[in-house]
């Protein structure tokens, strides 16, 4: 594997024979024989024999893979789960997340809401980008999320969101999101939620193979018949008698895909460094159509070169402002959060030919530094998934150079490479607004107008920061992956954030809710394929 986690075709394939260019398979040109397309190399090979076989192979063990595996197993299929990461270094997004899942409380309202949330431009009904059948299935299946979890043994639920994103969207009040209730009465975050699912998977005796990345899909006469995976330095050929489910997560850690599909660079992610778009390429190699490649959700986050993922931020309510590269505020800071917040960074200066808000900077003073860690310790990399322990007073991060410190605003500007005059004037102007309790420039809420006047001063770099990618192979309401001509690729299913159906992020919990719902649909239909 290279630096970005992109797997190179191995050279230990001497017993396999290169057959045919993957392009032919990708375009669905009829060929006979069994083909193996590695997601990385544009070739396909034919195995002489299978190393093992099962009914359904699920690739990627997050919430989607777990839901698919449990459902396929309960529907009578023998299931094999392949996970690329080691059991003790498993940082899937489902574990890093806040554990919130969406379960709308009535179908008709959920449909009405989703018909708006599925528009590329919410003002234009004609821009709806998923069909009504898909929306109906989404509303029905998502509505069963809590019931399904209860059947699995969830002790109860904590209401997280009581409404959708916009009171003006029809059905807004039906958009409810929950966490699984923990023993202390608080909701479980991703680690607890995933532990719950893991217990159900293990309890069913489902075979989980850790440290076993899938490399490619094997197809025969256009049907998916198996998987090539990498285990202990060699390729393993596993036959799927019924179907394969792709649930390998998004492409947030594949720099090449990010450069190809996203509008700006860098856009940073606070999710799993292992989500390198493997499933995207595996499906592409078999001619899958793509959708929602540019869909994202997030706000402003911090990413540092010497750490593999970005951090969820907690601006807090103490004195802070957010400025662009030149040192100027550009928006009421209380409007920079939320799932669409990142759009505020995507402003291009067509005269200077630059992205003035990439990076932006969070400026704060001593009060904020001592008020607690700048990242959330409830979820994400510094949460219970324990990828990083952020110091309570932010001192270690100052030492690491992640947070810049200076005795004056002038000095701080110098450290960020900004004109000191601009930043000083901006801070003075802001402090005037704080004194007046009125932000004449951006209308920030009065309660947040707290003067920056307690040195030392600090700065931390901000980038458009996203939870995950939504793009991937296009799927239909049966969770089948569709080819570029709109036909299902036989025996190939998907679930989760890989090729998510969302066009806008509908509300917190929408991703995990979709993992559960489409994981179940994929698991059900995969198990129902004829062996």
């Amino acid at each position, binding site marked *: 594997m290279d630096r970005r986690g992109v797997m190179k075709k191995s050279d230990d394939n001497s017993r396999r024979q290169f057959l045919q260019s993957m392009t032919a398979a990708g375009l669905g040109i009829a060929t006979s024989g069994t083909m193996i397309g590695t997601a990385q190399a544009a070739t396909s090979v034919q195995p002489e024999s299978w190393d093992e076989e099962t009914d359904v192979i699920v690739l990627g063990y997050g919430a989607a893979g777990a839901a698919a595996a449990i459902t396929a197993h309960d529907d009578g299929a023998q299931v094999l789960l392949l996970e690329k990461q080691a059991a003790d270094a498993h940082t899937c997004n489902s574990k890093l997340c*806040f554990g919130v899942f969406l379960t709308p409380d009535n179908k008709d309202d959920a449909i009405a809401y989703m018909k708006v949330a599925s528009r590329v431009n919410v003002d234009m009904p004609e821009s709806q980008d998923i069909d009504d059948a898909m929306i109906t299935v989404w509303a029905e299946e998502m509505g069963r999320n809590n019931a399904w979890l209860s059947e699995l043994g969830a002790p109860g639920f904590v209401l997280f969101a*009581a*409404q959708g994103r916009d*009171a003006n969207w029809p059905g807004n009040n039906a958009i409810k999101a929950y966490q699984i209730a923990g023993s202390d009465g608080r909701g479980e975050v991703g680690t607890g939620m995933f532990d719950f699912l893991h217990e159900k998977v293990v309890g069913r005796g489902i075979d989980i193979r850790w440290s076993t990345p899938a490399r490619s899909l094997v197809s025969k006469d256009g049907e998916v018949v198996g998987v090539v995976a990498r285990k202990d330095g060699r390729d393993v050929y596993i036959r799927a008698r019924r179907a394969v489910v792709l649930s390998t997560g998004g492409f947030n850690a594949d720099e090449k895909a990010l450069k190809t599909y996203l509008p700006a660079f860098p856009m940073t992610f606070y999710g799993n460094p292992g989500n390198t778009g493997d499933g995207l390429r595996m499906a592409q190699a078999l001619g899958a159509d793509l959708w929602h490649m540019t869909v994202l959700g997030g706000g402003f986050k911090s990413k540092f070169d010497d750490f593999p993922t970005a951090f969820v931020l907690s601006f807090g309510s*103490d004195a802070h402002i957010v400025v662009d590269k030149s040192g100027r505020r550009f928006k009421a800071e209380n409007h920079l959060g*939320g799932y669409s917040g990142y759009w505020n960074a995507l402003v291009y200066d067509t005269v200077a030919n630059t992205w003035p808000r990439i990076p932006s900077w969070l400026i704060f003073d001593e009060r904020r530094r001592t008020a607690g860690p700048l990242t*959330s310790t*409830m979820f994400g990399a510094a949460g219970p998934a324990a990828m990083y322990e952020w110091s309570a007073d932010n001192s270690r991060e100052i030492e690491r150079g992640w947070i810049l410190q200076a005795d004056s605003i002038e000095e701080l500007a110098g450290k960020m490479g900004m004109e000191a005059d601009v930043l000083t004037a901006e801070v003075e102007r802001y402090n005037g607004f704080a004194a007046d309790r009125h932000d004449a420039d951006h209308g920030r*809420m009065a*309660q947040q107008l707290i003067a920056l006047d307690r040195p030392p001063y600090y700065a931390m770099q901000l980038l458009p920061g996203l939870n995950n990618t939504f793009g991937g192979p296009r799927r239909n309401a049966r969770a089948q992956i569709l080819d570029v001509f709109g036909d299902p690729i036989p025996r190939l299913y998907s679930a989760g954030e890989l090729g998510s159906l969302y066009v806008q992020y509908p509300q917190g919990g929408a991703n995990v809710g979709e993992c559960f719902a489409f994981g179940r649909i994929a698991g059900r239909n995969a198990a129902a394929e004829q062996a």
Partner: protein
Amino acid sequence: MRLLKTLAQAATVCLLLQPVGAFAFGSTETVSSADFAALHRYIIKISSADATNSETCLACHGPFTALQQKTADYVAPNGVPVNPHITFDMAMPNDPHSSGKDPIECTECHQPHSIPITEPVPPANTDMCVACHHTGTFRSCSNCH
């Protein structure tokens, strides 16, 4: 906006309120003579008041603590019980609702009505609350952030 511009209007209000005087005090009990006198004082007071000022509203609908009691069982449109009549203490951004200081201006959520009421009064909304409590559950920010 002045609520009552003329003495004649004040007199109309007086007559209107008499049979339902209790309404102004938020109770259904019979109006005592003390209340009656108080009501007069209020009418005189609001006749020169500004309808965008919470004090004006509270002259009839208050005191604020009584309002809070009245809406103790209020359920927001999204189904979550929450008392909308709360205070927002600017000096305590980390814990703004606990000090009991600074009631939120009535007109943030309600539209002022004329006296006597001639048009149906539009229902209040919780938009102001969900601007911060964006999940609509009204839990503390630090539950998640």
